[in-house]
């Protein structure tokens, strides 16, 4: 991992997230619509977006609340789903110096998407990470509020084909990183592992195990000098 220059980058980080808004807006609204349908009031729907700020965990919580689950089930599921963020933090900390208030802010804003654009375009720049994270935070919360207010009149993202945005966005972030055979092998193992485990485990656990397995095997492989096909 080569660190980029450490100065600046808040605006660049904020703008780097803009293409992903296409996917964030309908999913933020869909989360709110689901939450309202599950009987959660507007205030608590919004509080979850403001304080938890983790899309997958929020959707899971809505489903669990609708099913009558208790607080400990919600909290433990949230922990399991977000455990992968531990790895994100370690990777970010290895390349980007974050201290004090910036580190606390980054901890709140470190989502899949913020990690993705930071690794792809902003390594070594703490302000880039904060900008990217804040960009997502603002849009996610605006979409949540809009979804809560217009709950009865919005279509599902799947109905208009926008559920595809996130897999495509992560593919676009992945492609530039696959530079040689070792990274190709890591991507293949992680993809197959996540695909195979998705129907068996909680999504967060499946992703964490597939990632750890692929990175562990990849780290043991000899460094590749040949270009990936």
């Amino acid at each position, binding site marked *: 991992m080569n660190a980029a220059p450490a100065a600046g980058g808040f605006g660049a980080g904020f703008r780097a997230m803009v293409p992903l808004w296409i996917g964030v807006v309908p999913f933020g609204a869909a989360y709110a619509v689901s939450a309202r349908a599950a009987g959660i009031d507007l205030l608590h729907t919004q509080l979850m977006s403001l304080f938890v700020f983790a899309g997958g965990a929020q959707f899971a919580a809505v489903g669990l609340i609708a099913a009558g689950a208790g607080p400990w089930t919600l909290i433990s599921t949230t922990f399991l789903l977000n455990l992968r963020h531990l*790895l994100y933090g370690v990777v*970010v900390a290895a390349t980007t110096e*974050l201290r004090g208030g910036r580190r606390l802010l980054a901890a709140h804003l470190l989502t899949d998407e913020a990690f993705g654009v930071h690794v792809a375009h902003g390594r070594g720049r703490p302000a880039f990470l904060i900008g990217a994270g804040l960009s997502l935070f603002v849009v996610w919360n605006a979409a949540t509020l809009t979804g809560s207010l217009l709950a009865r009149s919005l279509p599902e993202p799947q109905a208009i084909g926008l559920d595809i945005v996130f897999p*495509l966005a992560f593919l676009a972030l992945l*492609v*530039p990183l696959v530079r040689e055979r070792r990274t190709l092998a890591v991507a293949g193992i992680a993809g197959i592992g996540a*695909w195979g485990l998705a129907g068996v485990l909680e999504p967060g656990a499946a992703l964490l195990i597939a990632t750890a397995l692929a990175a562990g095997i990849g780290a043991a492989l000899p460094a590749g000098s040949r270009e990936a096909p």
Partner: protein
Amino acid sequence: MTPLTWTILAMAAVTFGVRLWGLLLPGAQLRGYGRRFLDAVPVAVFAALVAGGLPGTDATDGAWRLAAAAVTVVVARTRGLAAGLLLGLGVYLTARALGWA
């Protein structure tokens, strides 16, 4: 505060704690296998997010494969996330409209 408010705050604390825990670990000091492991994490995460996000969506169809091919070619050539994503989405929606799903 209601029980749901407390639950949301606990969910927030768990999420924040996990993220902060990672940021506090000394990844920069790692060498050898540990360092190579961290270097491989972004590739593994993105691949897992792509593959893990597919079950349950309409993404296993022909339209998805066409869109994925378009994104791969554009991003490999231009490194442009926005261009690749917009083109991929356009290809996907067009292919779906044409009945390739």
